[in-house]
């Protein structure tokens, strides 16, 4: 079932095609772990003095005037009588990187899963691109949800297919059935778009490699490229770096932030690492017992507030 045609073609053309969509960066230097992003602004690995003000100014300039791309209001969800989400509000604007923090079971992942339809909310509303998706059904609902793409902790690539084939699968929702039953039938334009998406995450040179042959960090970047190929305006990342080593985690977080800032996407990431959240988020949201405990820029949120999220019931041991 492997498409030899696609393989040969992508091997012969590892760099982005000349007519790639705008935003495609030049091909990165060849190498196993070429830093994906952002090449212009290396990720700050240390908290620098003065950066706070600088970042606040930047954010003020970007502040969304339009409706948020993703807006969740009063979201409720219970599993077998156990309340997981108890009226959660969350809005993510264009160009904004929001990190959601919270202990296990605080409902972080469930909130994201409710947006893409992997879980059905019991109440509340989800709006994508300013449009309520609770009221629409069938094909319209699928089309509305396609604005949001999910990136998973377990990455969920098709292991036996090439990186490029995996990326192109993000476009299945807008592809006619006759052109989508096997990668060999994917239109040339889609494969070129897929190459540009792979190039955006710095992996154009690995396009023909099987997904299973890539490292964990590379696989997660391929999954992000798949989300880009979906042409989603909202990227939801469910603990995207939980399975990665610190360097790969930094690379993936920097990529997500760059997609928010440079591609003007709305990015919401669920994280378990407060330091990583502080370093990369424009805004932090803390969930505690299914409710929003705090929301604010990293410099506005105190360490004590974050620690309170993880305090075991009945106090610390």
């Amino acid at each position, binding site marked *: 079932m492997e498409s030899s045609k696609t393989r040969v073609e992508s091997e012969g053309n590892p760099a982005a095609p000349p007519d790639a969509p705008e935003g495609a960066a030049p091909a990165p230097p060849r190498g196993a772990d070429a830093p994906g992003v952002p090449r212009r602004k290396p990720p700050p690995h240390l908290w620098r003095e003065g950066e706070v003000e600088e970042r606040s100014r930047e954010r003020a300039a970007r502040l969304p005037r339009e409706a948020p791309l993703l807006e969740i209001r009063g979201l409720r969800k219970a599993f077998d009588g156990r309340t997981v989400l108890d009226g959660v509000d969350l809005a993510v604007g264009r160009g904004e990187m929001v990190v959601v923090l919270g202990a296990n079971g605080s409902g972080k992942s469930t909130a994201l899963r409710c947006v893409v339809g992997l879980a059905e909310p019991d109440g509340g509303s989800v709006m994508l691109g300013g449009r309520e998706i609770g009221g629409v059904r069938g094909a319209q609902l699928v089309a509305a949800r396609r604005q949001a793409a*999910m990136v998973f902790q377990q990455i*969920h*690539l*098709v292991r*036996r297919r090439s990186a490029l084939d995996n990326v192109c699968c993000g476009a*299945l929702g807008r592809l006619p059935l006759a052109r989508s039953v096997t990668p060999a039938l994917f239109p040339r334009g889609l494969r070129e778009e897929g190459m540009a998406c792979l190039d955006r995450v710095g992996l154009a040179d690995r396009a023909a490699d099987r997904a299973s042959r890539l490292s964990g960090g590379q696989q997660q970047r391929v999954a992000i490229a798949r989300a880009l190929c979906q042409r989603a305006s909202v990227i939801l990342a469910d603990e995207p770096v939980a399975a990665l080593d610190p360097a790969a985690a930094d690379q993936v977080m920097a990529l997500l932030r760059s997609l928010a800032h440079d591609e003007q996407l709305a990015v919401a990431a669920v994280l378990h690492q407060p330091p990583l959240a502080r370093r990369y988020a424009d805004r932090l949201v803390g969930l505690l017992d299914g409710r929003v405990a705090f929301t604010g820029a990293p410099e506005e949120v105190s360490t004590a507030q974050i620690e309170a999220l993880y305090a075991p019931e009945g106090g610390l041991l």
Partner: protein
Amino acid sequence: MAVEVSSLSVSRIPPPPRARLFSRRGLLTATIVVAVVAVHVVAWRGTEVSLGALVDGWAGMVDFLSEAVPPDLRWNAVLLPAIEASLVTLYTALLGTTFSVPVALLLAVLAARTTTPGTAVYQASRSVLSFLRAVPDIVFALIFVTAVGLGPFPGVLALIFHNVGVMGKLWAEAIEEIDYGPVDALRTGGAGATQVVANAVAPAVFPQFVGLFLYRFDVNVRSSLVLGLVGAGGIGFLINESIKLFRFDEMLTYILVVLVMVVVVDNVSAAIRKRLA
């Protein structure tokens, strides 16, 4: 390297108590053991197993074998027809296995809990697979012999029908066992059910499907041999004829040819499965 730890410093906590013989779990285990033994005793009696009869009849078996050895290895009269007939057996198995692929594939997708479009379709396709599996290929062969006459063709038809049932079931189980993460990923991207099956399920099950296909081909080579005994051509037919004519030395030649064929098929399919793994 190992650090000596004095017994004084080893802390000990009593483990939870073990289940006693007369606890509910102990009784359940004892009941299951008794029931299994009882079923075997009943089966022993039901099949009239008798070691005495085997000892008494030993002489008959020795006669049979002494007539079979040495095998009749005349090229034109025995060996060449045997090779030709075993090729027919091989062809029967091949067509019976490959022609069952499309229907087995469809039924497997419909009969896997994870890919079925609905409960009704799931139950219906499961029932069809169960029926095809329940009817032995030899019964299918007898039915098709009445339709198309003696020869390898009814054997091919019989294998197709029975193999759809078995391979469909095995494939459905393989589909249910894959990792469903990529399926969720594509579904949230807006892919339809068919697109998901083609792009996430199919690549994941492909190696198992090929492995099971080769295993079924393996089994069908031996099945088509048995079908030959009821008139569906091939080397099975020759074996049956030689037994009827008391030509046990010819029979031994046929069996040796079958042995070679089975070993070759076995090795080839093992090599292919190894490459795929």
